[in-house]
């Protein structure tokens, strides 16, 4: 297992190099530099000094090399605009994004798994059709529109929840979480349904019913457990994606998260901050992916054996090849 995790971390390195190169160079090619944006705050001499300091008097590759040199030493650099280390900026915004990602994935899990199971159990019924149409509607709704509609209804007209910011605890979390959760729900409901349908007609379910297992236990223990792998995969992907910051929804609700930090940084040509945020989100996504892969092993014992090495497997079986060869 440790070896597997180590290998996965090693595989991340070329992706990080590639992503940073791609983003850094692309942003650098964009017309205008950060110096044009902050020009008004400095005297011409200071600006010249800064140009030299940031390496804007040399080639892109010099700046990228410098950035990577710092990165290798665990330093994400200092933001041009905020003049604080990117790591601190990121950590400042991370709690809000974590909260939002957690809440929206939770909303989606709580609603879509029961809905998906229900749809699968009543395959072809009105319940099934209605929930599938609802899922498709959720999938087709642009986030920013849903967010604005929720604001119009629940903040402006009913006044139940605040329309922006992350200042009122759980109250300010509800609307953005529903906004992101709806999009996630659609995919998760569809996955749950199709995965359950695969399982629901299987022989072991018929056996379980035949031996008198109560229907509730049949669904929860026998069916759902076997249908979980695709469901976990989708949840993992969604968690990873929302952790990168939901650019659009954070913008609608003026949510102080990473998505908004990244967008602002792009607009201000703050290459270092953008690259840093994207690298961090790539790392986050891989960590979640790794957790998901490990979770597979716990959900499905058949997969666990793939992680253990040959010697360990032998130990578990309690026989060495020699013993087996001797016929005992």
């Amino acid at each position, binding site marked *: 297992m440790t070896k597997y995790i180590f290998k996965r971390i090693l595989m991340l390195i070329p992706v990080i190099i590639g992503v940073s190169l791609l983003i850094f160079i692309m942003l650098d090619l964009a017309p205008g530099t950060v110096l044009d944006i902050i020009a008004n705050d400095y005297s011409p001499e200071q600006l010249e000094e800064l140009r030299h300091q940031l390496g804007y008097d040399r080639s892109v590759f010099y700046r990228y090399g410098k950035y990577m040199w710092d990165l290798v030493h665990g330093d994400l650099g200092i933001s041009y605009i905020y003049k604080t280390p990117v790591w601190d900026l990121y950590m400042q915004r991370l709690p809000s994004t974590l909260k939002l990602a957690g809440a929206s994935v939770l909303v989606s899990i709580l609603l879509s798994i029961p809905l998906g199971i229900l749809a699968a159990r009543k395959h072809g019924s009105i319940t099934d059709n209605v929930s599938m149409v609802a899922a498709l509607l959720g999938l*087709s709704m*642009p986030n920013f529109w849903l967010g604005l509609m929720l604001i*119009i209804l629940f903040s402006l007209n009913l006044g139940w929840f605040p329309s922006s910011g992350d200042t009122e605890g759980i109250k300010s979390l509800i609307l953005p979480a529903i906004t992101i959760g709806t999009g996630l729900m659609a995919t998760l409901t569809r996955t749950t349904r199709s995965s359950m349908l695969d399982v629901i007609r299987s022989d072991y379910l018929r056996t379980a019913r035949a031996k008198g297992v109560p229907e509730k236990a049949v669904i929860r223990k026998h069916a759902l457990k076997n249908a979980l792998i695709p469901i976990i995969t989708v949840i993992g992907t969604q968690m990873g994606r929302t952790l990168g910051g939901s650019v659009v929804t954070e913008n609608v609700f003026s949510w102080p998260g990473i998505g908004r930090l990244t967008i602002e940084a792009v607009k201000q040509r703050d290459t270092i901050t953008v690259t840093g945020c994207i690298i961090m989100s790539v790392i986050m996504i891989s960590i979640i992916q790794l957790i998901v892969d490990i979770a597979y092993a716990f959900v499905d014992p058949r997969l666990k054996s793939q992680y253990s090495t040959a010697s360990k497997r032998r130990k578990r079986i309690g026989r060495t090849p020699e013993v087996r060869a001797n016929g005992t």
Partner: protein
Amino acid sequence: MEPNQKTVSVAKKYRKRSAFGEIWHRLRKNKGAMIGGILLLILFAVALTIDFWLDQELVIGQNLRARLKAPSAAHWFGTDEMGRDLFWRVLYGSRYSLAIGFVAVFVSFIVGVPLGAVAGYFGGAVETVIMRITDIFSAVPAILMAVVVVSVLGSSTINLMIAVGVSSIPGFVRVTRAAVLTVRNEEYVEAAKALGKSNLYIIFVHVLPNCLSPIIVQTTLRVASAIVSASSLSFLGLGIKPPAPEWGALLTAGRNYILGYSYLTFFPGLAIMITVLAFNLLGDGLRDAMDPKLKR
């Protein structure tokens, strides 16, 4: 033994259909796909012909005396802050959204499908290089990728199309490669190789035509997400700027009047949703029709 008359007629009925006839037959039975298809046909008809029958003045002409009127019989979707009728503006906006959706997907199709085909067909080092680069592109969230590309190129309609297109290339590479992998060891490919056909010829004449269904489904569904991405970029202020009647831009403009004039944000968003829904319905239907094994 003489086959009885009934069997023969049934067999004839089924034999008559070509592969596409069969798909069309299955698609026609799918209500959702038909609704989506009809909606799209109407939208296309409107978008393609609107220049001929709609007075431009209705779309851009200002009438300050009729500003911010709520929806009524005279103005179905109400009027905006300049007194322009929102219904006509939304209708005109279909041109932008459909064009952006299609051109963007065309960009990713043109780049992604050949790359995926080459990766799947040749395998080995070529595949490794292409797939690792695809991994890098797909590691960056699509919307951020589009944001970065648009800020490099500058915001204009064409650049918006390119940005959205670039961000959905990885999807096409993956789908095409996966499809090609299932075909590349088929006997007809081997036969073509034995006949000494060039690799390029085999890919385009033998391999890709047999991988069409997943690619068509991917294309339909991608148009839907491209329309959403493009209007999201407009919403973030990086795409098409108001007062152009693109749906995302209309919605952004309406956002300033959200207090009291919420219909200004409601209708453009509704238009986006219906269009995207139509593409999703059709895409789902196509997937079911083309691959009955996947049907649920």
